[in-house]
């Protein structure tokens, strides 16, 4: 009677509602701690370049002389080193994941 247990499981899951989500109608809500994407506020930035130095992949590029800050979302691995290093707290880690990219996206602030 070893087939009985798998039949019970299969019948129950056939009658139950599906375990999958109806994406894109239903989107998954991330948790508070989820590492989604890097969000940046240019207003408090002092251009000390600490975040660019700590970034292991080189995703953040800071221009000290012309006051620009750029991040390449394709290179960012969401390690959080820049968030911990920023003294002015202008970099935060937001839980919403970045959308899928077809081309390389570099977001620039001045």
């Amino acid at each position, binding site marked *: 009677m070893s*087939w009985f*247990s*798998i039949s019970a499981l*299969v019948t129950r899951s056939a009658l139950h509602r599906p375990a999958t989500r109806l994406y894109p109608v239903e989107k998954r809500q991330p948790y508070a701690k989820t*590492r989604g994407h890097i969000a940046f506020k240019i207003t408090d930035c002092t251009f000390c370049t600490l975040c660019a130095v*700590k970034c292991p992949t080189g995703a953040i590029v800071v221009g000290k002389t012309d006051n620009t800050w750029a991040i390449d979302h394709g290179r960012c691995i*969401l390690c959080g080193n820049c968030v*911990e290093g920023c003294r002015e707290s202008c970099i935060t880690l937001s839980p919403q994941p970045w959308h899928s990219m077809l081309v390389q996206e570099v977001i620039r602030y001045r």
Partner: protein
Amino acid sequence: MSKTTIVPFGPQHPVLPEPIHLDLELDDERVVQALPSIGYVHRGLELLAERHDFIEMAQVAERICGICSFIHSQGYCQGIEQLLGLKVPPRAAYLRTMWAEMSRIQSHLLWLGLSADAFGFESLFQHSWRIREMLVDIIEETTGGRVIFGTCKVGGIRKDVDAETLQRVGRQIREIETAFDEVANIFSIDHTVRQRTVGIGVMTAEDAHALGAVGPVLRASGHAYDLRQLGYAAYGELDWEPVVETAGDCYARCIVRLREISQSIDLIKQCLDRMPDGEIEVTFKGKRPQGETMIRLEQPRGEVCYYMSANGGKYLERFRVRTPTFANIAPLVHMLKGCELADVPVILLTIDPCVSCNER
């Protein structure tokens, strides 16, 4: 002497999660000899120690493999902590143990699904991965990432988990346990599963010792050898025994992993009950690692060795990882001799190959 045919197995094959190549020399459906050939995902990660300083290297070590990522970073951090002479606070040790056991459960559940897929039992594959989703949601809630946890750092852990979340984790672990017990019961008594795995790929206890097998492959042949008994992190203070089976065939290896999942669930419950309060990290401003060390941990697949050598600079001189799949290649070659062609995927998956760890 009869002629033999050589059939290439891999690197693309439906049962393989990662690319590995085997040249099977067949004598009319029976394997005479198998020659493995690796290197499809060799990224030279050990050389990256010269480019990233020793604090950042913890994040590189985490990304050696996707399935066993947390234990790689834990091993790296333990090695650097030993070189610096640091002692991690107890709360960090217990949280690291809890996450390591969660990593072990999700790895074994992933393996269970792939192994069921290898002998064609697709619905069991999907049910075990459905249970794995519940676990990965807990991991995301407590650490922030589903696969790459990002919590281990030199000196402790990065972010604390509050008491309310830990209680929620405890409740969900009990739900996972109920769901998993049903699937484990099906796996162990089902007639089809037993037909495909009992008596296949037998390895005796002497062969397992002589060939240097590690992990569940060694424990299924009768040796009670589990490196968590060394007592690193919080394992010295918890109650548990290594899981051993004696048959040495594919069925025994599967049963060892199923029992290890139940053991890990029990270890997580013990950790949650005994979680101490306090600090989560210890600082070490200005110190640099000096000397050399060899750290051994128990990954889901077996024994992993980290060798680190430093000379007081910012970068490590040598960082070497010897992963368990690399040690299990020799037993695999031995087991494949004399088996049938249809048993090759089953045997290959019962050693649980993690090829991206294999080649770093």
